[in-house]
């Protein structure tokens, strides 16, 4: 008869039989690795696979796994030989060939890893990456930073990397070798693991607030695709797209181009290559400057030559103009000199002539005057003769005076009884006034 109860070990033994019976063959299981990093160095590596809700990202199922020490080497070998080698670590999607087992001492179902399919992980990463790129392209974020122009002398550099890493040292020493006066504004950041996006975004925001920066460089050494997949990140891509400064990225190597690289203004494979890009830009600028300077020299020498020729011509011109000027003025003075030598004498001669002419005129005038005078005198004589008293007396007029000789012209000139004397042509008549009669003749 059967026992009424089972011991725990009996039960667990039964469960193990059922499980082994139910899962006779190993199965391919896909999920995301959790809790592996802290157990990586142990002899047998215990960790979990989980499945997340695609939208909420909440864990909907999980199961424990173990890679026994005997299998570890094989798994690592498979990964190393895959096209893009990567390391097992937390947060990556994997596809394991597992035997489903039950471990009675713990009473837990456990998957014993036998093999791995690396192509699955790589495909997942690639798919994720393609989706992200498409999304960024649609939002126009992929080319945004490329539209910024980089200074032709990018000497002030904001550097995002992890302090004292190989990338940090390669980048700095390459810049130093150039001898140019680069100025580095360094912001330390995680360059691997889950914390990368947040840290890089913080560093970008810090550097974008600084003045006087020319470019921002994000760089790290190369790594596997799975390692670099943290740079296939939307947050970093958006931060680069909205950066006011051009972002240069040097992440990964040969075949690994991350979304960060694609979103950046310019990318190169290594920190050294990014440093060289900056150095070459400055060298190009200096070369261009040299060429321009040379051109200026040549052009100005030409110009000076032409000017000198022109000057010579002008000097010659000046001299001949001066000669001409002097000649004209000398001739003018000579002319004036001769004028002053002759004019006054001519003037005097003219005056002399004037005087002679005046003399002749005077004589002529005098003669005329005298001639005219003779005639006038004749006339005067006739006039005088005409008014002479004798002639008047002859015509019958007489002149009467008082006894004391006054002329009697009016009745008032004499009184009644007074004597008067009248001259006639041949003698005098004495008479006495008898009567006076005044007539109103108007006289």
């Amino acid at each position, binding site marked *: 008869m059967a026992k009424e109860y089972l011991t725990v070990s009996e039960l667990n033994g039964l469960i193990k039989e059922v499980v082994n019976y139910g899962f006779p063959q190993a199965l391919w299981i896909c999920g995301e690795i959790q809790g592996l990093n802290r157990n990586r160095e142990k002899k047998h590596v215990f960790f979990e696979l989980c499945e997340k809700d695609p939208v909420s990202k909440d864990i909907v199922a999980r199961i424990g796994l173990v890679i026994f020490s005997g299998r570890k080497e094989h798994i690592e070998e498979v990964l190393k030989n895959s096209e893009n080698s990567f390391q097992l670590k937390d947060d990556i999607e994997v596809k394991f060939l597992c035997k489903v087992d039950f471990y009675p001492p713990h009473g837990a179902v456990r998957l014993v890893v036998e093999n791995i399919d690396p192509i699955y992980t790589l495909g997942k990463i690639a798919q994720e990456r393609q989706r992200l790129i498409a999304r960024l392209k649609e939002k126009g974020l992929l080319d945004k930073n490329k539209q910024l122009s980089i200074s032709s002398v990018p000497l002030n550099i904001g550097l995002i990397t992890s302090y004292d890493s190989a990338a940090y040292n390669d980048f700095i020493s390459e810049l130093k070798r150039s001898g140019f006066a680069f100025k580095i504004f360094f912001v330390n950041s995680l360059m691997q693991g889950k914390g990368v996006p947040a840290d890089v975004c913080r560093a970008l925001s810090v550097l974008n607030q600084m003045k006087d920066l020319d470019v921002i460089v994000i760089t790290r050494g190369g790594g596997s695709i799975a390692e670099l997949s943290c740079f296939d990140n939307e947050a970093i891509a958006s931060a680069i797209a909205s950066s006011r400064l051009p972002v240069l990225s040097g992440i990964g190597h040969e075949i690994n181009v991350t979304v960060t690289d694609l979103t950046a203004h310019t990318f190169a494979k290594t920190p050294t290559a990014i440093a060289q890009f900056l150095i070459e830009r400055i060298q190009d600028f200096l070369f261009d400057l040299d060429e321009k300077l040379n051109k200026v020299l040549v052009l100005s020498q030409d110009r*000076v030559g032409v000017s*000198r020729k022109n*000057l*010579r011509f002008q*000097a010659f011109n*000046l*001299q001949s103009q*001066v000669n001409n000027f*002097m000649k004209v*003025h*000398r001739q*003018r*003075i000579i002319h*004036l*000199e001769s*004028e*002053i030598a002759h*004019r*006054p004498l001519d*003037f*005097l001669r*003219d*005056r002399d002539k004037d005087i002679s002419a005046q003399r002749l005129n005077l004589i002529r005038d005098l003669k005329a005057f005298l001639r005219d005078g003779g005639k006038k005198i004749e006339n005067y004589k006739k006039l005088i003769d005409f008014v002479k008293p004798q002639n008047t007396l002859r015509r019958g007029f007489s002149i009467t005076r008082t006894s004391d000789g006054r002329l009697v012209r009016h009745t008032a000139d004499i009184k009644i009884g007074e004597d008067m004397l009248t001259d006639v042509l041949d003698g005098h008549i004495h008479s006495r006034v008898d009567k006076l009669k005044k007539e109103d003749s108007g006289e």
Partner: protein
Amino acid sequence: MNDVKYSKALKRLEEIIGKIENEEIDVDDLAGKVNEAVSLIRICKEKIEQAEMEVKKVVEDFEVDIDKEKEDGK
């Protein structure tokens, strides 16, 4: 009288001659004006000679400068 401007002296000279020519001058003043004209002529002549000399010297100095510069340029 030597600090009279050439152009002024010339103008005065022409004025005097013009007056004589146009017989606008008194005989009493003639000798005085002729005297003035002669000294004006002397002044103008001196001025021309002096100017010519100075210009010659300046141009010569200038040519020397140019030649020197050209040599230095080489």
